[in-house]
């Protein structure tokens, strides 16, 4: 089919389909709506406007500007050697789709990515043109996430950050060797260089704000990245170490893990199977432990093969491997200690700390807080509950505290994949 003759609906089908493998759809983290906006706002948490049967939320119009691409990344359906149908939106088409969808409250904003056409800089300029047109011609104040094109010049990245709320550069695969194997044209140093370019600009903007100036906005919702897991044999420990490096070194807001999903026309080198969703879920749980619970990657992955257990969640696995740490006294322990108890989340730790100023907490109070008591009870002391230390020492502890049936675990996985709570 000749691309020019395609109508917008046909292009949308191709270019949304091509974007569905990117896990990110968040629309949060921007601080306040841009001044002078007529349509669109960014306030509070992002809103998920719909959910597809894959349980993932639709909060953004997530599309590619084009799925023609000169790169040949094996995990990507849009790689040059793939036979997938191709299409290319015009800038006006994307602008109009975004505005029309937004005005009907279908979406929270635009997540625009693109295959690389001509050169990286040319492609980046096209993405910027869309964002700029939305902001200037349509006084659009909603969320915009632009996927930064690898190798695009710093000047263009600086400009993109001025129009977008969030920028992202995909790390794609956890290690250099993985990249070499599956995305020969992408190099980790280049990717990391692009990230640090964004980070430096974000830092600069923050410093100016702190000094009392009003610098122009630059990616107020920060930057994120996506990592594909399961396309190569790289174990979870390496995945989490890479993520940890990115959180600390590049101050990323989020690392999205995307279980490698079979793609049409895939290269024979890739695993031909459905994605290991439970593994992806465990990685999100572990990621949460690193960001909000003070765990380090080495602590979380204790298994010999350097992979997270698929059977039990990483926090429980850590507790079972570190029984000497327990029981923790709910009424006396520090915040850091409370955070390590399986079945108790960040929000409940906060509540416990404030409650115990007034009362001595009992197990019934914890149940009212919806603490996962079955998991927690072996590991905590309360005013009325003292687990026998013998329980902690039993060899079958893991079996007794883990969720009852496989079915239940899958359900937990689904809900917790969204909230990220462990």
């Amino acid at each position, binding site marked *: 089919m000749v691309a020019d003759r395609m109508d917008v*609906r046909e292009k*949308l*089908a191709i270019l*949304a389909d091509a*974007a*569905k493998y990117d896990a990110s759809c968040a629309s949060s983290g921007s601080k306040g*709506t841009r001044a002078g*906006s*007529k*349509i*669109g*706002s960014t306030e509070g948490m992002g*809103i*998920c*406007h*719909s*959910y597809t*049967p*894959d*349980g*993932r939320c639709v909060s953004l*119009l997530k599309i590619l500007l084009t799925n023609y691409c*000169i790169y*040949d990344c094996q995990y990507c359906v849009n790689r*040059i*050697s*793939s*036979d997938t149908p191709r299409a290319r939106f015009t800038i006006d088409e994307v602008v109009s*789709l975004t505005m029309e*969808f937004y*005005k*009907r*409250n279908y979406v929270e904003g635009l997540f625009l990515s693109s295959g690389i056409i001509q*050169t990286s800089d040319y492609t980046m300029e096209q993405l910027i043109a869309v964002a700029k047109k939305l902001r200037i011609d349509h*006084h659009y104040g*909603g969320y915009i996430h632009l996927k930064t094109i690898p*190798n695009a010049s710093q000047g263009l990245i600086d400009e993109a950050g001025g129009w977008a709320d969030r920028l992202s550069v995909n790390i794609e695969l956890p290690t250099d060797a993985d990249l070499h194997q599956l995305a*020969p044209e992408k190099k980790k140093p280049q990717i990391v260089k692009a990230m640090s370019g964004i980070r430096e600009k974000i830092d600069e903007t923050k410093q100016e704000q702190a000094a009392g100036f009003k610098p122009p906005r630059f990616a107020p919702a920060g930057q994120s990245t996506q990592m594909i897991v399961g396309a190569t044999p790289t174990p979870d420990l390496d995945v989490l170490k890479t993520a940890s490096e990115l959180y600390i070194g590049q101050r990323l807001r989020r690392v999205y893990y995307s*279980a490698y*999903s*079979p*793609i*049409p*026309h*895939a290269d*024979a*080198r*890739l695993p*031909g199977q*459905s*994605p290991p969703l439970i593994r992806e879920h465990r990685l999100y749980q572990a990621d949460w432990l690193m960001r909000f619970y003070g765990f380090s990657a080495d602590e979380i992955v204790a298994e010999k093969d350097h992979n997270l257990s698929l059977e039990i969640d990483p926090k429980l696995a850590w507790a079972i491997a570190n029984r000497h740490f327990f029981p923790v006294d709910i009424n006396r322990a520090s915040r850091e200690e409370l955070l390590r108890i399986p079945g108790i989340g960040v929000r409940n730790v906060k*509540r416990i700390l*404030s409650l115990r100023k*007034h*009362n001595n907490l009992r197990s019934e109070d914890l149940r*009212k*807080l919806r603490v996962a008591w079955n998991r927690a009870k072996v590991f905590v002391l309360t005013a009325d509950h003292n687990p026998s230390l013998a329980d902690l020492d039993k060899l079958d502890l893991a079996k007794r505290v883990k969720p009852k049936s496989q079915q239940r675990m899958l*359900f937990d996985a*689904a*809900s917790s994949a969204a909230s990220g709570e462990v």
Partner: protein
Amino acid sequence: MTHFLNIETFDQWRTEARLLLAQEVEPFDINFLSSRDQPLLFADDRQEASPANTTHNVPKLFLDLARNVACHRKANRWELLYRTLWRLTHGERSLLQITTDDDIHELLQMQKAVKRDVHKMKAFVRFRKVESVDESENYIAWHRPDHHIVRLAAPFFARRFNGMNWTILTPDESVAWDQHELQYGAGVPASEAPDGDVLEELWKTYYASIFNPARVKVAMMKREMPVRHWPTLPEAELIEGLLQQAPKRVNEMIEQNEGFDRTATHYMPQQSDLDSLREAAKCCHACDLHQFATQMVFGEGAKDARIVLVGEQPGDREDIEGRPFVGPAGKLLDNALARAGVNRNEVYITNVVKHFKFTERGKRRLHKKPNSREIFACRPWLEAELAAIQPEAIICLGATPAQALLGRDFRISKSRGQVLATDWCKRTVATWHPAAILRMPDVSRREQMEQQLVGDLRLSVA
């Protein structure tokens, strides 16, 4: 004495509660009613209170909580709020912090339900565009929230959709924005809402396309998008069909994985030395070019060569002889190598694509540029050759090998002659392809290009 009170809104409740508190009326002496919930059986026999002299300081937190809970549909909300207010002002100042207290716990649960409902309203309102007589655009939505939350949610919509006229209808209350102020009105049944919008087909197309059939998680979807909201979401009618097709689509995706458009990786031998590679490459069917070419033309030269020269693909003469760079371009290259002081026997010469691609024009076979898929299908051979030789310098002759090794962004016109590091060697240089020099009609330009080729070859030996 029991007081009967008919309360509808938070402001009403606040006024009454102030008076009652001033009179020290205890919670169990009041019977809160709501005409929404039940008919008023008893007249209000409460005496008008004198303006309260005492002011009660309640935490701001409580007012926020009460404002939310007031929107809850549950009948006991007013008495629960008053009892809490009473306890706060009668010795239990920090009651709100005791989140495990039964009353507080219930209030918090109600607040959570209301907040969730507001959040869902922000998410699931779907505007439909309606053109009015004066041709102005109006957007109208019908939504059915669980609680009385229109006034909680409306300001958000006014901020977000500031520059358009919109109306949200719900069974209890409606609200309209004319780009200046919010106006509230009576509730409206679903039958009075406009149906359909031209954009809905596009929206459904998007919804169906962004769904990945390889990751079905229905429980998760239903938890976050409760089924009772589905009737007002145009995309919801697709869900059943998408789920039915999902297993079939995944199988197709996985099946297509096999055998489709293989790359040379598929034909790699166990041993990766040059002789094994050359043998294995003879059987390569990674692209269609093998069907038309006379033979595979593999690289040749010293196994321990310090320099590897990479061209695009074999030409007519090379295809017949089975050796690279033996035609007119090869002659020019030999000449340039000699001028640069390089002995052809000491280098290794190969191409990115190993089969000749051509179109027939009469009796002649004309060279045709390989397309990207052919280049990428064949590329693993080149990578294997480079890995086996581990040269100190690579010279890319023309754009095709340069882009294969230096990235698709690479432009000969911009970066010819620069020494660049690649994964295969630290000194990778791209220069003109000898055939490009031969084809150059302008004699002085041709001489200049030849000079540059010699210079670039010298550079790589240096």
